[in-house]
């Protein structure tokens, strides 16, 4: 425990102050793209990830004083309160949390591995809950702030490929929806991002991507979404919204025979 000292000031943003964003899962993919884009706009970014070399690169590439990096493993949820306090002190407050961390290990058609499954739930769901809950308490007390969670279209339906991944994303989507409903009317915005297939390290092994987008495109749309007020749940690209509406409507007895 460290004394917060004088650096821990009121975290309300006043007009001209650049947005202060905390990105969990910043070392690659959408997270890294987010950090780069926010830093280029002059935002104050706290970038969190396990891989310190990647973080160092990110900070080195960004304009001076925009990106601060913190080594953090989302499996270590107990670290969250103290780390959040440190970050809020360093940034002089916080406006936005983005939870982007996620893993999708390849699971073979004959493979059933509870350890692998647990990792997915811990990273994709429990880590997200630990960060969102801690930040929600801060934002609620300030009646302001935005919480952005990256879930996935995979959470919309339980496909045959990777049960634990679908379950973890379904869980995170539902958690975010519930959080949004709780914080409605308290000045805190909760945004669910549902990307389709993004060309990142995560999807490298997949042979054929449907409507692939780049991490940069995803990051751009995400930022526009949380700064706007229209969408609280945003599919990227948008056409997934219609597709998933149809897929969600397929009865299970038919869905299990379809290879989609």
């Amino acid at each position, binding site marked *: 425990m460290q004394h917060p000292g004088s650096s*821990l000031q*009121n975290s309300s943003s006043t007009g001209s102050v650049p947005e202060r964003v905390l990105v969990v899962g910043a070392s690659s993919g959408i997270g890294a793209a987010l950090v780069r884009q926010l830093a280029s706009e002059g935002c104050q970014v706290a970038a969190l990830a396990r891989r310190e070399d990647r973080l160092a690169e990110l900070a080195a590439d960004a304009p001076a004083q925009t990106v601060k990096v913190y080594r953090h493993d989302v499996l270590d949820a107990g670290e969250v*309160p103290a780390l959040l*306090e440190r970050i809020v002190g360093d940034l002089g407050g916080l406006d936005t949390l983005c939870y982007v961390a996620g893993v999708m290990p390849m699971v073979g058609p004959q493979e059933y591995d509870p350890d692998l499954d647990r990792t997915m739930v811990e990273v994709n769901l429990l880590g997200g809950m630990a960060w969102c809950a801690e930040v929600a308490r801060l934002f609620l*007390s300030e009646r302001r702030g935005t919480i952005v969670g990256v879930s996935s279209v995979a959470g919309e339906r339980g496909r045959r490929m990777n049960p634990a991944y679908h379950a973890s994303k379904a869980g995170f989507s539902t958690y975010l929806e519930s959080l949004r409903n709780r914080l409605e009317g308290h000045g805190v915005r909760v945004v669910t991002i549902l990307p389709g297939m993004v060309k990142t390290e995560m999807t490298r092994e997949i042979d054929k991507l449907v409507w692939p987008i780049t991490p940069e495109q995803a990051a751009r749309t995400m930022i526009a979404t949380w700064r706007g007020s229209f969408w609280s749940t945003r599919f990227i690209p948008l056409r997934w919204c219609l597709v998933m509406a149809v897929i969600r409507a397929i009865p299970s007895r038919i869905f299990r025979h379809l290879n989609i």
Partner: protein
Amino acid sequence: MALEMGRVGIERVEGWGMSVGSVARVIRPENLDQLRAVLAEARKAGVTLAPRGTGCSYGDASTTEQGWCLDLTHMNRVLSFDESTGDADLEGGATIRQLWRRSLPSGYWPKVVSGTMFPTVGGAAGMNIHGKNNFKVGTFGDNLLEIDLLLANGDLLTCSREQNAELFHGAIGGFGMLGIITRVKTRTQRVYSGDVRVRGISCHDLGEMMEAMQELVDVADYLVGWIDTFGAGSAAGRGLLHDARYLAEGEDSDPGKTLCLEHQDLADSVMGVPKAEIWRVLRLFNHDLGMRLINGVKQVAGRMESMRGWHRQSHGGFNFLLDYVPDWKYAYARQAGEGLIQYQAFLPSETALDGFLALLAEGQASGHVPYLGVLKRHRPDPFLMTHALDGWSLAMDLKVTAKNRAHLWQTCARFSQICLNAGGRFYFAKDQVISPSVARASFGARRIAAFRELKAQADPQGLFSTDLWRRVFEQDPDQRSHGPWPGQA
């Protein structure tokens, strides 16, 4: 470590009126061991602790721009309730709501409750709160039998009028600066119904209201006056007086029904608008013109209520007016740093009428017309830093915005001058504005020196400290005219 001390996290810690606060580390111990661990940890780290309950004090009594905030709301058990005497034993973090919900089914109502049921009993003791019956039963402290006080060094002392009496009289109303009140034992009032008898008396001016109230002091159980703060000239201080009485035994034909908890529930909606959303409607009226209109309509409604004569209302419905509209403070503002302050002036009987008229006129002249005014009758009590005196109080809710803040604080300084000239007192559960010199002039240098002496004995290292303590008792006189604007601190 976090587990040994309870939950630790950062939050904005603000006064109830929202116009003061800052982000702080908040620690929530669950039991005495964890609480002691927090104290030890803070001593080791060399930081101060700001004790806090549910944060119902309007101003800076539980906020802190330095050190850690010690939130005691998780130590909230009702320890025991004696059905034969009505004595209740509670942990400090238990709320007044928990107290009455435990006592009422057995036919007891707390002796003293505030206008909201959410303060903790530890906070109520620390701030020595009062209710609409202050003239009759005294303050919250007057009705306490004993408290447990955890000192900065970890010693737990039971304090009462007989045992550690000096600490008892200092810690009650000592706004948490002498130690943590971990347990309170309080008396409750025998009641024979879940209802009280109430009547409204409409008054044309302040003098008329005070006269009417004074006549009722010997017979009423509760007296409270609502003041139309926009009334001026011959109508200055007009309003509606409420006189409430407990029912005598047998007067309620079915006490079993009214004493049950459901009977005390406040309505879920007002005129079809769900309770939780009403503040949004009130917000549309939260400006001088709108509040003039609302106060005017209430004055007319008061005349009608006055003609209605005696009627019955539940204890909860009569006492907890502030809970009718949840989050009504959001009608004032939602952005941290804006909101409201309450200025409550306590004046002795001889000077009260003229003093209050001067306050109302000063508010109107300066452009800071209070949006709510409440008049109460008080009596003295034996506590060291008490606000209670043989006299009256006028509480005024004043809107704070980023723009009017500095000017409002100047106006409050003039309010304070009026109070001092009238021999007045201040109340730390409400105050957010008085300077050390005003406090010294009001409480007297001797009283303040005695309190400092007690503090030096009980907490020699100054472990317990809040924005209030630093503002009123640590700063050089008048160095700080108004609170720092959030972000510019």
